[in-house]
């Protein structure tokens, strides 16, 4: 590279190296201060977001106190607001979605990290899973309404007709409900779980795997007995981060969960979640209802923040622990 393209300015032909001039130093100082300032503003933004949400929720907290956290009715005409069904629905749909998503995500992570497929197929599978994460959630919602619900309806009807003594099949599927919402959630958390679990599995030193093979273990004895336990911290962290994503997911749930303010263990019953409650009611809310919704936002913030901080900490610890194994 010539000095002209680098722009240091050359005065002599012998050497293009020269100490910075005074103006260079001043400009350097300013630019470094600028990056420091912007870096601080990111921390500031994080704090500002938390404080801002707490600030808009402040009137509701003052007015309703903790009563929202224990009440079950949501009736804006009588100014009665309870978040119990939404909190229940948030946790229930996320956990069901996470169970399905973890099964598939972990299978994919194992298939992609343990040489099950030829390299070309592996690359295709990896790209398809990455693209699953790219599809906007509102499109998943639309797809869920017109594809998932009609597809699972015969199965749901059969389960309800023959197995209705099991509580989770206790009610018929009348359109939107927990199960369609959880299926779409599973698809949305699957890329997070599979990518991070795959990284955790690939970080296990190959000598450990070879030692297991050398002792005569079969492929799956090695995977389930050695690799998964070694990478467990990372896998648990990936599931936690997937959980965080599922808790905050909004549009697909708003379109598929049914928006019924009720508590039911049936997979086919409609319900609601904190995020869906916000998205569905906010545009038309006024007065005390929009205050109560801001309270819901604060509760959602607290739950997701806690889950994400724990998940990030677990993933960080896993990487540090495996570094010691090498």
């Amino acid at each position: 590279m010539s000095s002209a393209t680098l722009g240091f300015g050359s005065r002599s032909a012998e050497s293009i190296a020269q100490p910075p001039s005074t103006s260079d130093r001043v400009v350097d100082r300013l630019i470094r201060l600028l990056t420091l300032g912007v870096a601080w503003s990111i921390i500031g933004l994080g704090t500002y977001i938390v404080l801002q949400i707490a600030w808009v929720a402040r009137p509701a907290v003052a007015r309703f106190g903790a009563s929202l956290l224990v009440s079950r009715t949501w009736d804006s005409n009588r100014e009665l607001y309870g978040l119990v069904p939404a909190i229940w629905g948030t946790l229930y749909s996320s956990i069901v979605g996470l169970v399905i998503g973890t099964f598939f995500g972990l299978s994919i992570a194992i298939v992609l990290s343990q040489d099950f497929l030829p390299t070309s197929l592996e690359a295709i599978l990896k790209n398809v899973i990455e693209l699953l994460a790219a599809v906007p959630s509102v499109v998943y919602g639309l797809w869920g309404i017109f594809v998932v619900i009609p597809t699972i309806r015969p199965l749901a009807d059969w389960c309800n007709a023959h197995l209705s003594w099991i509580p989770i099949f206790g009610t018929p599927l009348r359109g939107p409900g927990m199960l369609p919402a959880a299926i779409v959630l599973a698809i949305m958390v699957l890329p997070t779980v599979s990518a991070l679990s795959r990284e955790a599995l690939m970080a296990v030193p190959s000598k450990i795997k070879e030692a297991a093979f050398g002792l005569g273990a079969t492929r799956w004895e090695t995977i389930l007995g050695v690799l998964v336990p070694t990478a467990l911290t990372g896998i648990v962290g990936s599931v936690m981060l997937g959980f965080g994503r599922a808790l905050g997911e909004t549009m697909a749930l708003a379109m598929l969960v049914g928006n019924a303010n009720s508590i039911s263990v049936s997979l086919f019953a409609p319900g609601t979640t904190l995020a869906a409650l916000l998205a569905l009611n906010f545009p038309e809310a006024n007065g005390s209802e929009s205050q109560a919704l801001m309270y819901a936002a604060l509760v959602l913030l607290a739950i997701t923040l806690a889950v994400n901080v724990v998940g990030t900490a677990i993933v960080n610890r896993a990487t540090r622990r495996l570094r010691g194994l090498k």
Partner: protein
Amino acid sequence: MSAPVEITHAFEDVNLAKLEMSLRSPRTLASAVLSAVAVTASLVACVPLVSVLAMLLYRGGSRITWEALTALPPAAMAAGGGFGNALVGTVTMVGIATAISVPAGILAASFLALIGPETRTASAVRFAAKVLTGLPSVLAGVFAYGAVVLVTGSFSAPAGGVALAVLMLPTVILTAEEAIKMVPTRMKEAAIGMGATQSQLLLRVVLPTAMPGILTGVMLAIARAAGETAPLLFTALFSSYWLLDLGRLNLMKPTASLAVLIYNFSSAPYDNQVSLAWAASLVLVVMVLGFNIAGQVLSRNRHRR
């Protein structure tokens, strides 16, 4: 397997037939069954993407016309119409969000990767960025509602842009930091050896070299922002009119977007509106996947170098 006699002689009590891999042995069988389950599960996981794309092409493809791309949304019972204003609104708001988040993200990443990588500020910024990654998009909407809508007094495109910028920022910071870290140390040392200050090093050597990687992150962030719906319900709402009104551009009013149009029309009882929702989804997914693939191509070129 036929082994030489001398070797079998040494292991006379070993039954070689027992060492053959056979599905009749329970351990091998279990392994084969689990392999089949895992591979099947992986293939099943690809079905949703194929199904989504097929439905979009099938239900939306036929509705993509010049009118759909340029006209205003139709009223409840009307025929025809399109989502021209939503397309303009999405591009405007993503543009505002990019203009805010990309310069800020690159500057913050420069600090994290080059100016002060080991400082306590840097680890605090990294932690904040990671936590922001997990911020539910609906809460970014609530934040922008409080910070912009309540302050300016109206739902608007800039409010939507701020909400989307909050969601783009962590992606830009974390990917740009990785890209800057990958610039070879010898290049940095060469520049410092010639008397470059840190900021000359940053602006003339490190950022140009890391640019493909930074752009990958920007593309991924744009792809995510373009599809976000929930934050826009709190900030931009929807509108059936153009941003440009009677020749005057007024950004400070409710603004349409593809994502909110899909949401609004998905539950509409009129076939015309539902089919427009599918067509808008197709356009949105093509945009999002296009940015994703552009980002991946950029990062692949970088690895080749």
